[in-house]
């Protein structure tokens, strides 16, 4: 027995010296990322990995302004149709290839023309990319595009090494970020190792970064508490109390970009032909029956931000004068009576099968029930849900959007007549005009005014009900210092280090 103990102690010692020699940070993430190819990736999980792996032209600061990363400066032409970017000196890709204007052109062209690219519509305004000199690139647009910088701060702006990226990128991406790709075991881990040629190498303190997909929130937390992980993201609000009681852990609770909303099917096929699909008074009645703050208190421990607009609480586009409507059951009932429907009115609400969404669904069911709605919850798994929504096999559906820093990416594709994610088939030409104009308007005050005009139209037509914004709850070991949270929830490892 003692011999066994000695053996174990020796092994532990061995393990700890090994850890001293090489520092590793382990990050528990919720989902397994998809393709690690910026042009093809579609998941938030892959963005978490890209943050350490691939630098972008532009980065997003915690205050949602855009700051230099690979581009050190940028200017717009007078007609706002040419964006000229100055590129950082002394940057190389993980395979040693230098980063220059030709590489930017290669990447933007790749995102625009690769058949499988999911970035096409994000940078659809680009007509051509010109290499002005090695460190200057000019991006020519069809029309002014106020969203372009925001797009270049995400996957469309990530730079791959041109020579290494002609074939299959996803299996072994070669970028220019602080860490380079080491190994991936699907559904188990993605390991990155420090890139010694990084232009800002001194700001990164770990030799290795390992991302471990652990879908269950309580399991993720248990791993952190057991010391097997250093950082976890998307912690359940109900676990925050437990975390705060644990002296060895530290919580970052930062307002986030992701939000939940209910979409009504107003014109997508036969299932739109319901009272709630056809009569906006009934949809308004539904909204008035819901108490967003109560949902926040009951399910999210008051940590979420109830909202009736698709703009994150930190965004300059939030219209403060457009107040959150209070729950009003009497008014809701009056609207239902005015619409002349027989109560209780049957409404089918499709929800995803996550326990949290179902909990929210049941609260809405109970609240709407008091106003005269008979809500039937239809819990559906994700793949089925997606195709049902697209083909219009729903009456009302709870949806979630991971959110974008700019306003356009939270509203245009959902609510314009031809929007790619407009499952409701809602169409109001007046709103289309406003949102399309806002896209091409670069002046902040003018854009704000345009969105401020759009909100009342939406509140009147009520094609969807915005519910709440989700904070980015990140928990880490106390010894991890220097982390700066960002509304996008991505974990930037710059200046982060382990100090016991």
């Amino acid at each position, binding site marked *: 027995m003692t011999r066994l103990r000695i053996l174990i102690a020796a092994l532990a010692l061995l393990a700890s010296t090994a850890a001293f020699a090489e520092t590793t940070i382990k990050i528990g993430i919720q989902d397994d990322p998809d393709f690690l190819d910026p042009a093809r990736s579609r998941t938030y999980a892959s963005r978490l990995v890209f943050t350490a792996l691939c630098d972008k032209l532009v980065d997003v600061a915690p205050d949602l302004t855009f700051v230099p990363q690979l581009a050190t400066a940028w200017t717009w032409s007078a007609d706002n149709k040419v964006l000229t970017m100055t590129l950082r000196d002394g940057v190389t890709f993980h395979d040693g290839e230098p980063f220059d204007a030709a590489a930017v052109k290669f990447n933007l062209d790749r995102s625009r023309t690769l058949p499988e690219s999911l970035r096409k519509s994000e940078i659809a305004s680009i007509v051509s990319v010109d290499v002005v000199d090695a460190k200057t690139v000019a991006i020519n647009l069809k029309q002014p595009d106020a969203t372009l910088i925001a797009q270049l701060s995400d996957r469309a702006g990530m730079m791959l090494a041109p020579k290494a990226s002609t074939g299959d990128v996803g299996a072994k991406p070669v970028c220019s970020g602080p860490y380079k790709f080491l190994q991936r075991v699907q559904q188990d881990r993605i390991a990155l190792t420090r890139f010694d040629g990084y232009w800002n190498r001194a700001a990164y303190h770990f030799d290795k970064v390992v991302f471990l997909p652990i879908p269950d*929130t*309580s399991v993720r937390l248990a791993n952190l508490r057991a010391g097997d992980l250093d950082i976890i993201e998307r912690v359940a609000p109900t676990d925050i109390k*437990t975390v705060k009681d644990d002296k060895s852990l530290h919580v970052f609770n930062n307002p986030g970009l992701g939000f939940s909303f209910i979409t009504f099917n107003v014109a997508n096929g036969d299932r739109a032909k319901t009272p709630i699909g056809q009569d906006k008074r009934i949809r308004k009645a539904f909204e008035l029956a819901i108490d967003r703050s109560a949902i926040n208190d*009951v*399910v999210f421990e008051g940590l979420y931000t109830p909202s009736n607009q698709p703009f994150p609480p930190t965004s300059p586009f939030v219209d403060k004068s457009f107040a959150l409507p209070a729950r009003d059951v009497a008014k809701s009932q009056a609207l239902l009576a005015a619409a002349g429907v027989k109560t209780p009115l049957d409404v089918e609400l499709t929800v995803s*099968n996550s326990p*949290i969404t179902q909990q929210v669904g*049941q609260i809405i069911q109970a609240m709407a029930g008091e106003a005269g709605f008979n809500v039937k919850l*239809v*819990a559906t798994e994700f793949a089925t849900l997606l195709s049902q929504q697209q083909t219009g096999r729903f009456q009302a559906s709870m949806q979630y959007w991971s959110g974008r820093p700019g306003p356009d990416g939270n509203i245009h594709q959902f609510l314009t007549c031809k929007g790619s994610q407009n499952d409701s088939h809602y169409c109001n030409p007046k709103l289309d005009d406003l949102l399309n104009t806002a896209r091409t308007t670069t002046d902040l005050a003018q854009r704000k005014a345009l969105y401020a005009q759009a909100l009342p139209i939406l509140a009147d037509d009520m094609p969807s009900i915005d519910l709440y914004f989700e904070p980015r709850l990140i928990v880490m070991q106390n010894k991890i210092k220097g982390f700066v949270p960002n509304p996008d929830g991505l974990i930037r490892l710059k200046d982060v280090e382990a100090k016991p």
Partner: protein
Amino acid sequence: MTMIETVSPILFRPRSTSRALQKFLGNKGAMIGAGILIVFALAAIFAPWIAPYNPIKTNFLVIRKPPSALFWLGTDELGRDLLSRLIWGARGSLVAGGISVAIAMAIGVPLGLLAGYFGGKLDALISRIVDALLSCPFLVLAIALGAFLGPSLINAMIAIGLSAMPIFARLTRGQVLSIRHEDYLEGARAIGLPDRWIIARYVLPNILSPLVVQAALTIASAILAEASLSFLGLGQQPPYPSWGSMLNAARNFMEQAPWMSLAPGAAIYITVLSFNLLGDGLSDALDPKSQH
């Protein structure tokens, strides 16, 4: 008929019904199991009158409260009374367990009997089908059925039943093989008894015991499988309770509100225990070999 009467004394015959019943009634464990199950069944039937609260009525003022004089088993994540949900949930869960096992046995046992008794081509064919079903993942089967028939508790039971069926078929076949050459069967065949007589009167009673054991065990997995299906939106639909879906909801609150998982967990455990006690009594009473 008369011939059977004359040869039967030399064979293992099931004891007469009354003696089996007598033995069964004399089994203390079986009686306790049956008693508990009857109580649960009555609770399920009379739920509207017994349950202290409405099982789907939310109350946001009493979210996740521990057991108290007001709420004997505490409340859940939406402030609903757990005791009331447990009583109503008995309906879904007991029926789900019972029906799934009934489906599994009704299909699996005859298939296993045919395969084991007749052997040859029939055995080959049945074994192939059973193998195919065995290697098909439960989830694929369940989602596909849910998609065809629509999500509901009944369809969840069908999916659970179908996926539990191969076990019964394989078990039955193996048992039949093991007794196929016993003297009493050879004897019965030698005197020219029709096959269905032999199967019904001599084969089935002699292999029933492991099947009853398995049936009692399958009820447990069926009740738990309903939990994973309701998690996928394929079982009991919210807000209506089943023990499985209650356990599922409790998963996220194991530390903050352990009573949420204890109540349905204990209910499932007691049910499983009772079914197994009952099963023991039944297989004792039915087993012709243990009559001496």
